[in-house]
């Protein structure tokens, strides 16, 4: 992949950080189910948390391509840290950046972009997953406040977030037109984070319930216009797909890197593994598919950077990268044999982490629907 000098330099900077600071923590975060507070702080210092946000709003003033590269490089060594970065930037920062008023940007975007506050996005509910219009959380305007009731589930960084964007409806019977987006701050009476999920992978990231019980939110915390929550979260997810795709790509690259190292260092029946044609075949397949995924992701990122339509391309990128990522991580375990099942190698972690990429921010099935709709029309 040919990149401009500034992106190459940027990649090197993130790669150094990932290799020197994130990689040594990855196994421990997974085993201990530990949230990487230290790495969050470091990412803030390195200005990685809002790469495409202009400097005046606390961002790095870079672009979406840089952001995809950053998620990829960090995901290559640690899926948990990668998913934090992706969720914070795409789901916490972006909705306010794209739909917030100037006051909201001053109040919320700047601290989020600087990493002084952690952001999160509450869309999914126990009974509203792919069917986001099935939102049952309600927000009723009473005087100058919205009164919110309901439960969100599977919310990345939910219980550690300071600022949460969420969706709620005026009336569950209304479907999309009833839904609006709001901002709630941690500590708001009536708002709490519930159970944290025990998951297959991404064990260093936090996934929690959010509970609203007669939670009163000031009217000015409406994000976007009333009834336009759908627009806000569709825009959010279009962009989010690039980062989940980039994360899937990074994890797949990590699995390939580990496999290459393994076959270069190990022998079988006295013969170096890398001389085995069946091993070569697997390595070649993984590497080719990873490179193709990278092109799709960078293409989607560059389209977004050029303000061109990218819905189809970002859906393709996420769908493809997570699909080949599952295959690559699965193959990486096979290449390692039984050793790949142990914590002595990172590949079993990569496979567990990778599976979420086919589910989060729109399942592969939803991506296919988006892609087909773009091609075939509605």
């Amino acid at each position, binding site marked *: 992949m040919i990149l401009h000098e500034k992106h190459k330099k940027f990649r090197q900077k993130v790669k150094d950080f990932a290799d020197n600071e994130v990689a040594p923590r990855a196994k421990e975060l997974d085993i201990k189910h530990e949230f990487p507070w230290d790495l969050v702080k470091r990412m803030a210092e390195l200005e990685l948390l809002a790469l495409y946000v202009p400097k005046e709003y606390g961002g790095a003033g870079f672009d979406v391509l840089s952001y995809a590269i950053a998620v990829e490089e960090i995901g290559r060594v640690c899926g948990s840290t990668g998913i934090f970065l992706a969720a914070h930037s795409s789901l916490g920062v972006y909705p306010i950046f794209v739909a917030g008023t100037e006051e909201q940007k001053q109040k919320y975007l700047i601290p989020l972009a600087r990493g002084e506050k952690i952001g999160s996005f509450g869309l999914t509910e126990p009974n509203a997953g792919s069917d986001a219009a099935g939102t049952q959380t309600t927000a009723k305007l009473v005087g100058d406040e919205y009164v919110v009731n309901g439960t969100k589930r599977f919310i990345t960084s939910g219980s550690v977030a300071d600022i949460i964007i969420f969706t709620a409806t005026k009336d569950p019977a209304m479907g999309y037109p009833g839904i609006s987006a709001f901002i709630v701050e941690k500590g708001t009476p009536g708002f709490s984070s519930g159970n944290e999920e025990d*998951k*297959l992978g991404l064990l260093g990231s936090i996934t929690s319930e959010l509970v609203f019980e007669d939670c009163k939110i000031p009217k000015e915390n409406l994000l976007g216009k009333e009834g336009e929550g759908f627009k806000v979260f569709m825009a959010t997810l279009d962009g989010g797909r690039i980062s989940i795709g980039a994360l899937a790509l990074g994890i797949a690259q990590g699995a390939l890197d580990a496999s290459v190292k393994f076959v270069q260092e190990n022998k079988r029946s006295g013969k170096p593994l890398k001389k085995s044609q069946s091993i070569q075949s697997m390595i070649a397949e993984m590497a080719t598919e990873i490179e193709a995924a990278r092109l799709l992701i960078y293409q989607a990122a560059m389209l977004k950077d050029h303000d061109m339509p990218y819905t189809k391309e970002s859906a393709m990128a996420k769908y493809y990268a997570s699909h080949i990522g599952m295959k690559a991580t699965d193959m990486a375990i096979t290449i390692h044999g*039984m050793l*790949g099942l142990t914590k002595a190698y990172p590949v079993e972690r990569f496979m567990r982490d990778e*599976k979420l990429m086919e589910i989060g921010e729109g399942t592969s099935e939803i991506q296919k629907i988006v892609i087909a709709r773009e091609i075939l029309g509605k």
Partner: protein
Amino acid sequence: MALIAFNSEQKLIQGEVRKFSRTELEPIAGDIDKNGVFPVEIIKKLSDLGLSSLIVPEKFNGADIDTTSLCIVLEELSKVCASISNILAVNNCLVAFPIMNYAPEQMKEHYLKKLAQGEIGAYSVDLGIDAPDANINVTETDGDCLVSGRHDFVLNGETANFFILPVCLTNGKALYLCEDTAGIQQIKHQILGMRAAGIVGFEYKDLRLMGDKCLLSADKAVHLLKKIQDYSNIGFSAISLGIAQAAFDASVKYSKERRQFGRAICEFPMVQEMLVDMKTRIEAARLFVYDAAAKFDKGQDYSLSANIARLISGDAAVFSGITAIQVHGGYGYIKDYPVERFLRDAKTVQVLQEPPHDLKSRIAKELLS
């Protein structure tokens, strides 16, 4: 299915194991996975029911069932708890089988009766039939040998009463039996799946293997080691089959219950296709698993069928695990549902002892010879 016709005795065993799985295993399967605890009590119960030393002949107090029945038991158990199924597969296919078929008579008497009493036998996995193991050092001294080094993976190793280990001697690979479990340092792993199956590493320091405990001497071992591997592949394929079936069953159930866009998700063609893709692989695998078992039971050459069964069912289980999580969406990714365990177990059993590419190369050798 027409090609698979179980006789009344086999159906009886199936019913009994299903009942056992439902009442005894289902309530604990998630917990023992989570805690990685070898299920001593359950193995004891299985043994009391005569379900642990399945293929051991009656004259050694075993259940003396055929290999088709063994597969039925393994499939049924792994639908609920693959770890327990794996313990039995190792006890039968990798421990009882070589002893029954290759050991001298007094050795059979001693070890098979132990298995029939519910003891656990383990099997040290080395790097394959014709490969010397760089981690193992063997010194031969008048009939005995001294072993130092380590095997990274000993199936059933954690609570084994005795174990079989392959060692490379000057004239080839031999199999030894050893009861000196005290002289061994265990290496604990945290393995992706099969977390309650007691898979550990063994570290040996001058472990003495007695000449009279030689199960299979080096001069005839190569051919017979292949037979053992082929036979164990029938067992492992039955485990994969059970996991795949369980993943499918869970997905059918969930897809009927879960509603999105105003209807049960099983009404969506993309979900239906996932179910059908799983089922297709599972039924193909089932034919091969029971074909291999039937061939063995009839005294026919089972090698190719067994190895194909292992490949197909291994793939079917990993595919079904991944797809079952997909059908469950976010709920598939968390431990409230068993499908994430099914994927971890499926991937684990797929690479046990003989990962697919090694197996393929062995199959190819046979096909081309």
